[in-house]
């Protein structure tokens, strides 16, 4: 029968909800404390969120009792997401400050214009394709 023997009792769900609400309180409380820098605060918030997400995945989503293949799929997607985050972070951390294309017109350093377009492109580099620009 469909996993009937594995269906856990309802009590564990109540305990899990209590833990999740408690951790939410901790997250909100921690946001009012300065741990040194905003990135440390961010890392703490993400770590607590990960504990909460694990509780939801293991207990509410029954990964504890499922065949391991479901957990493998879930964790694989998270690993690939980690790669997806890691490589752009390495890239952006190892170069000078990047000014997104659309926002270039608001802070117009003429020096930046030399880097952007290929030779032969018209001087009006800020005009074409600037649909998401924050220009006024």
């Amino acid at each position: 029968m469909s996993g009937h023997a594995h269906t856990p009792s309802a009590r564990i769900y109540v305990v899990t909800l209590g833990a999740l609400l408690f951790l939410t309180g901790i997250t909100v409380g921690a946001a009012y404390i300065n741990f040194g820098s905003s990135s440390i605060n961010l890392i703490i918030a993400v770590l607590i969120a990960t504990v909460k997400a694990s509780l939801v995945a293991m207990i509410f989503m029954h990964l504890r009792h499922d065949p391991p293949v479901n957990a493998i799929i879930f964790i694989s997607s998270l690993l690939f997401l980690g790669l997806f985050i890691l490589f752009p972070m390495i890239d952006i951390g190892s170069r000078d400050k990047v000014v997104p294309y659309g926002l270039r017109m608001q802070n117009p350093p003429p020096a930046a214009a030399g880097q952007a377009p290929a030779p032969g492109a018209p001087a009006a580099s800020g005009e074409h394709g600037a649909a998401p620009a924050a220009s006024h």
Partner: protein
Amino acid sequence: MSAESHVVEHNAEHSFRQHHFIDAEQQFTTSKLGMWLFLATEILMFGGLFVGYGLMQSVYPEAWIAGHHHLDRIMGAINTVFLLCSSFTMVMAVHYASTSQKSKTVVNLLLTLGFAAGFLVIKYFEYSHKFHDGLLPGRYFAYHGGGPSQQAMFFGFYFAMTGLHGVHVLVGMGLIAWILLRTMKGEFSSAYYTPVDLVGLYWHLVDLIWIYLFPLLYLVN
């Protein structure tokens, strides 16, 4: 399992088991496997937004801090509680469906719908407040209260991430209403409750994504 009980079970299965599965158990685990594959694609879809968020936060931390001051932590926290409670009532609905307790399943599905509606109502108030203040994404940004101009980008991420999440909440509500109707018609029992379980998985993923969105958007520090 004795031979005659197997025959009885086989007859009970006849209404829902498709012929290419060995038994109901295999059909159930296969359905769950497919759902988890779908959830993996959902994680990667939201992942693109999380990557963009992370990159731009690292480039413009001051714009992120200025932008998040316009968000209401209390409303965000209430919405977090709503979604966590809805996840709880959802898993209780799955639990009762898997033990053939129809009326308790219906009650819990209704509660889940109620929490989801409460979430959207609060989201509506938050959005209309942002619209009123001109805190809009990209070139629509029309806030004149000062601060870094890249706040326009913060609100781009805010609306893209919470908007995509809100669409998922709406879709989830539709799915919950659908299994609610099927439950009331008596289509589910301990022998077959796969749709309840799979909609539950989807709903927990919506909760899971909000668990990250809340600290990243509302609690940047």
